[in-house]
């Protein structure tokens, strides 16, 4: 009896009474509100305040440096071939000794921000522990040109005691 539905509701309103339907729930709600006023606050005022990320959180990648501040990536391309999203592009080149310890370094190293699915396969594939999933999750940008992270977006800063040749690079 679909046409009678409204009539039926009205009927139950009559039988249960106005206060049962409106006043009691209102008081229950206000009581909950007052109870929470005296409990500790859980809201975080992001972006002024930030929640610490879990240790295994996988955010924007970082490219590591060794203790001398030299880059670690040997441009082997294993991260790029392991990447299921085809998000990594790199170009190896001959190193003159200022970039890293070995003969081969990544002249170009790019990760495409919107392609990356943060699976962490690149980190797992890397034979020299050069790439790690970082903790940075604030990845929104203003322009599509910024979707590609270049090497200088990914490299960690050189350590404090690093020797000069490394600093000459970036």
């Amino acid at each position: 009896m679909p046409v009678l539905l409204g009539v039926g509701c009205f009927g139950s309103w009559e039988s249960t009474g106005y206060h049962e339907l409106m006043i009691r729930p209102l008081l229950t709600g206000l009581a909950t509100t007052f109870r929470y006023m005296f409990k500790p606050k859980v809201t975080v005022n992001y972006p002024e305040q930030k929640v610490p990320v879990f240790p295994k959180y996988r955010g924007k990648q970082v490219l590591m440096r060794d203790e001398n501040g030299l880059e670690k990536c040997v441009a082997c391309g294993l991260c790029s071939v392991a990447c299921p999203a085809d998000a990594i592009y790199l170009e190896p080149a001959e190193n003159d000794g200022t970039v890293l310890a070995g003969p081969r370094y990544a002249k170009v190293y790019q990760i495409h921000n919107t392609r990356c699915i943060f699976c962490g396969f690149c980190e797992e594939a890397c034979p020299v522990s050069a790439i790690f999933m970082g903790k940075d999750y604030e990845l929104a940008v203003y322009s599509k040109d910024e979707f590609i992270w270049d090497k200088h977006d990914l490299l960690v800063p050189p350590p404090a005691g690093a020797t000069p040749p490394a600093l000459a690079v970036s």
Partner: protein
Amino acid sequence: METVTLTIDGRQVTVAKGRTLLQAAIEAGISVPYYCYHPGISIDGSCRVCIVKIEKMPKLQTSCSTVCADGMVVHTRDAEVIAARAGVFEFLLVNHPLDCPVCDKGGECPLQDFSYTFGPAESRMDFPRRVFDGEGVKGDVDFGPTLMLNRQRCILCTRCVRFMKEVEGDAQIGIVDRGYGSEIATFEERGVHSLLSGNLMDICPVGAILTRDYRFKSRPWDNPGVVDTMCTLCSKGCSTSAWLKARPEWAKGTQLIRMTPRFNPEVNNYWMCDIGRFTYHWVEGDTRLRRPMVRRGSALEPAAWHDVEPPLRGRLQEAGSTDPSSVRFLVSAHASTEELFVLKQLVRGLLGSDGLSAVTIAWTRSNKPQSAAAKFKVPATDAPNVNGARDLGYRVGPGTDGLPDLLPLRDAVEAGRVKAVYVLDPGPDGSLGDVSWLGPARRSGALGLLVVQGVVMNELAAAADFVLPGATYVEKDAIYTNDQGRVQAASRAIGLPGEAREDWDILASLARSLGLAMPYESSHDVRRALAASMPGTAYAQADTLVFTRPVPARNWLQASNPSERWKWDFLYQDLPPVKGYSVQTEGMPPEAVFIPLKPVGVRS
């Protein structure tokens, strides 16, 4: 053909008499690893990984050096073979640096693949590895102008030594010292100086010898596209593969990344020369012509094709109005047979039956120093199609061994008897020889019109009134006739740059605009007409020649074209080196797939 029949792994195999067990196994698709064996050079039997068990023989035998005999019963997957083979592999890796991530061979390395498939599952090597960085000897060194040598990676298979002795004919590489100290070396560390040096990277089964050109350029799985084509840099016409490096779709652009030889027993066997291998950078270089250009005042300005054609036709008609034979064509022998065929119809249509006398074919010759004993000789003629031009009736003099004669043209131009010169040159810069007189002749006014249909910006193009961008040998399907008279196909590997067009197409539309009939829509139509017009010659089948395209590979480690795939499947038996799984071990008992190490010091 006399044959012998033997049993390998329970299968009856029939092969030609004189074949070795290893060749029989490869032909039958049975996986036996090998390093020192290479089908193009002699047998050495030094690496010992190809050992098999032959019934009635007391010890395991190296299959590469054992000739098949009737009734032989051979086992390649017997427990004894598996254990002994794994032992050999363990020894091969004892001193190998395992720097695969920075090694250019990594991913297409027979040492990786065979070790994964046939070697022990783990290493017992706890001791420091031998490194060649001692007194006077360095591990990673320059190895001549084209190569790098990494001694740490060498497994002493001596393929390079035998290649230099047998194919190059000048034994520049040798093994010095002995036993544990053995190493590959050249006299006084001078390196390899040879026109065939690039082949050493192909035959070295590890990453010990690498070319500088390919060093750190790409990884094999980044080169999924491979096109079967041919080299056109000299009159030999070697069969080659052009490798294309791909990029992720968001970092656009494929790139020609290397040239490798493709087995062709009639022409180049397994080899190619360094000229053909390393001279491809110009194809994608900055000097390539990408847009048509027209001279306005003193400057050449880019223009659209439809803006170029009417004035070009007008100027050509004007130049030929009094005497059609004062329009001359200077054509490089890098032009393919299709282009020469269309050009022939063009000049015949304009100038009548002796129109071909208006065409001068040009090429260069250079002395390529090689040892007298070299088996692979690089011809002196630096152009692929002198014979094709001759077969079409152009005047090129006898044989491919002469120099072209540009003097009559030069004299005529300098005497002002020529009103227009149309240059067709799809070859690299300089392939017309000395044409430095042509630009000044145009500038001084002795010549009224210079049209250059070419591929690179050079002095000649800079002096032209019209510059028409054409296609190089890897950008079009075309046929060339080599110095043996073989009509061979070169396939398109990469797209045309910018607004460039295929050369036969440019010539055909020019002919159409001059009122000639050119019923061709594609280069295949041209070949069909060519085949029909020359019955009974090698050109009669020109329209049935096969051109290839890269086809998708079945897996990321596999080359995409059939001949490379053949090589990977049979020559290198190269399959995904995924630990614990390999197509090669399909059907093998599990104990054969996982080869456990014997504990040290325990005798089994």
